[in-house]
């Protein structure tokens, strides 16, 4: 796969993010307005100065009118995008490309989702009329991702009890990280016993192995890199944007063994090439990854090149991806405790990278991070879309 990339051509100069959670008090339009206001205030830019918008939402609204009406924007172009759980990232990717193309000087990518108003558990989907035979009809997201657990144990000879401990560690770590985050949905430490013994949802996944269903919005203001310092003295430069959509082969290919996401491997390789990264294990300062379910994060450590194959469970358990480990993963709490309003999550990950690289992450601030990776996944094992962004504090000299 090959992308020319737009390394260092655009920068993020402001971001906004609402508190995620059961926001019974806010509509989807309220949430996106709150996020946008935070970003505009930080950049000290009036709404009228934004040239175009990209809106990401899975199912909380339709068309660009959702945003233009909520903000009362002035006939500016608004593009609504959707790419499952990678929707927020997709809005960001398209917005960045629009600035890099030279079409616009200042744009915003906004992601929003309202999941708690339905009264149902888990994600809802509005499917087109069908024959009633798609496995997605009956297999819920936690069940689809729970397929990784027995397959991983079988392939690498991992004792199911050890795998259970590793999954528990992921949930424990991300809850512990989220505890320090005032915008996270869940802000309390959860004991490993409670995680391991929680009521089962699918396979061996309990309630605490699943990310929270929540409401929220996040946004990013993007400008040409050479203009970045007009808005802030600490911009974050976009190094890579990579998206891979699976052809759906793995779900019907007996050679696929449910211990990897081929589309994550592809998008990561593309992103590393765009950003000039050769050893992600040492060059990446922090990663925000799609921990929708605990076994997902373990597999992602291998697909993103942070762990050797068959080792992530062991390295996670050893604390290597803890906030004080060798590569902090999901220091803001991740989907697990920050919550997962689908359209907003990709931008929420960037929000944490943005705060960390500006030194504004408060109690959870890491020591001088320079390169951050965000990873967003939509779909399910066997057929997914995967997005990887790499952002950094420094802009390479041009020429």
């Amino acid at each position, binding site marked *: 796969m090959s992308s020319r990339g737009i390394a260092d051509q655009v920068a993020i100069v402001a971001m906004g993010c609402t508190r995620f959670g059961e926001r019974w008090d806010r509509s989807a339009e309220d949430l996106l307005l709150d996020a946008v206001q935070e970003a505009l205030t930080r950049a000290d830019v009036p709404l009228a100065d934004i040239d175009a918008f990209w809106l990401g939402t899975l199912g909380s609204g339709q068309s660009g009118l959702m945003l233009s009406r909520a903000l009362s924007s002035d006939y500016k172009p608004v593009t609504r995008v959707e790419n499952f759980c990678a929707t927020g990232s997709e809005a960001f990717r398209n917005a960045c490309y629009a600035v890099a193309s030279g079409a616009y000087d200042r744009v915003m990518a906004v992601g929003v989702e309202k999941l708690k108003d339905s009264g149902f558990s888990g994600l809802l989907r509005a499917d087109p*009329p069908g024959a*009633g035979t798609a496995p997605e009809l009956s297999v819920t997201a936690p069940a689809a991702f729970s397929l990784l657990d027995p397959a991983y144990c079988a392939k690498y000879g991992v004792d199911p009890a050890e795998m259970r401990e590793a999954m528990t560690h992921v949930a424990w770590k991300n809850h512990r990280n989220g505890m320090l985050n005032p915008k996270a949905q869940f802000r309390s430490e959860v004991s490993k016993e409670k995680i391991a013994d929680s009521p089962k949802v699918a396979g061996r996944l309990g309630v605490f192995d699943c990310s929270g269903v929540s409401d929220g919005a996040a946004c990013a203001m993007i400008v040409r890199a050479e203009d970045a310092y007009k808005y802030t003295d600490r911009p974050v430069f976009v190094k890579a944007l990579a998206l891979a959509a699976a052809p759906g082969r793995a779900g019907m290919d007996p050679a696929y063994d449910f211990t990897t996401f081929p589309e994550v491997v592809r998008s990561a390789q593309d992103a590393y090439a765009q950003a000039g990264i050769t050893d992600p294990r040492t060059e990446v300062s922090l990663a925000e990854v799609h921990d929708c379910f605990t076994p997902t994060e373990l597999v992602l450590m291998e697909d993103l090149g942070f762990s050797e194959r068959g080792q992530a469970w062991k390295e996670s358990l050893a604390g290597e991806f803890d906030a004080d480990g060798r590569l902090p993963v999901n220091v803001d709490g991740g989907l697990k405790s920050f919550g997962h309003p689908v359209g907003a999550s990709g931008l929420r990950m960037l929000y944490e990278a943005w705060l960390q690289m500006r030194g504004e992450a408060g109690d959870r601030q890491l020591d001088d991070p320079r390169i951050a990776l965000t990873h967003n996944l939509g779909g399910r094992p066997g057929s997914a879309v995967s997005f990887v962004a790499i952002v950094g504090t420094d802009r390479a000299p041009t020429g």
Partner: protein
Amino acid sequence: MTNGILGYASYLPGWRVDPRGAGRLTRVIAAFDEDAVTMSVAAVQAALERCGAVPAAGDRLVFVTSSPPYLDKTSASIVHAALSLDRGVAADDAIGTARSAMAAISSALHGRPTVVAAADVRTGRPGSADERGGADAGAALVIGPSTPQTPVIAEHLGGVSLTEEFLDRWRSPDTAYGSTWEERFGRSRYEPLIAEAVAATLDAAGLPDADYAVLTCPNAAVTKAAGAIVKRAVSTVGAPTGFAGAVDPILSLAHALDRAEPGQTILVISAADGVDTMLLRTTDALPTRRQREPIAAAAAASGRSVPYPTYLSWRGLLDVEPPRRPEPDRPAGPPAAREAGWKFGLSGSRCTACGFVHLPPMRACRQCGTIDQMEPAPVAARRGRVATFTVDRLAYSPSPPVVDVVVDFEGGGRSTFEVADARPDLLEVGAPVDLVFRKLFTAGGVHNYFWKARQVADLAGEERS
């Protein structure tokens, strides 16, 4: 020359309930995802496979039931599609009673080659005799002319029909269970009718009696007295399952065919709003073409116990709290028609360029990218092995939890399926499964039929001649 019986099979669900709480799991019940359509598919599959007959254009499939999944829409066409029969095979419904089965058999014996597919879910009012003494089952008869390749296993010697109208049993089309008059009244009407029909049948055939006499009747007083009403050396009271409604005459005949020797006579007597008889003589072909498992053995198998409240919820007689998930959408007509080869026939596509098997069928090859170079790849009759599995406690189901497996088929191909009659404690990577036609859910009045995987506990042990 009339047609004869070419093949037969019965299908009994694996579930049992103890409606009286007496500790005896005797009542055979269909699972929540089974109905008359799915049970007749299972029976016809077994019957065709055993006798080696393949219905051809001009033949007929008739679906007999008193518990039809649909009115106004033909259910036989669903059975036809699930069996991937030739489109020149006619398919029609005979909805009603045991009498409908006898009528279907009679017209098949005197007409074109026919597969009679019968099944019933016999729901009784909670606490009733119908609930205790009924059975859910399917059965199939393959009827046609004798050929050197497929000789008949039983010849037709004759039969009579007598009709009388009296109020013995009735059910409104929109209720789940029926009502009966006091049984002695029905017996007083049926008994002389049966005697007359039996005498006329045997006289016409020039026989003093039959080796097997099979009496099927929804009136329990009649079947209890069968031995007195029809005096024969070898007698049976219908099927060894309890009364199974429209399928009962075929189940009863299957029980006789399981045991009869070549050259013996079987007299089938169906007493339902009159009497129909059918006299058969078995041939030398019978011993090698009996169904694999005798119905008596299937009925005697202990089966798997279902708590009575669960059974009631399966039948819609007890409204239980659903999971906090939206109910699924009903299948839509056009996509279901476009994808009928997969949805009903479970046929994928194999790339003729590279051999990769796609389940469901695809036009663009997932392996080599070649477009529209595909041939059908049917997998319904294949075995497979579990690649990975889960128990989904969040998914909507009429009987949660849903168990799902990813299946790798022998000969290629992978897809994800729900598991029928699941035993999640026995699931493991590599475990063998086969495929059964079931109902995923019903939404908007539409039954979503599709295939499910069934665990084969011991693949080697299942391989019989």
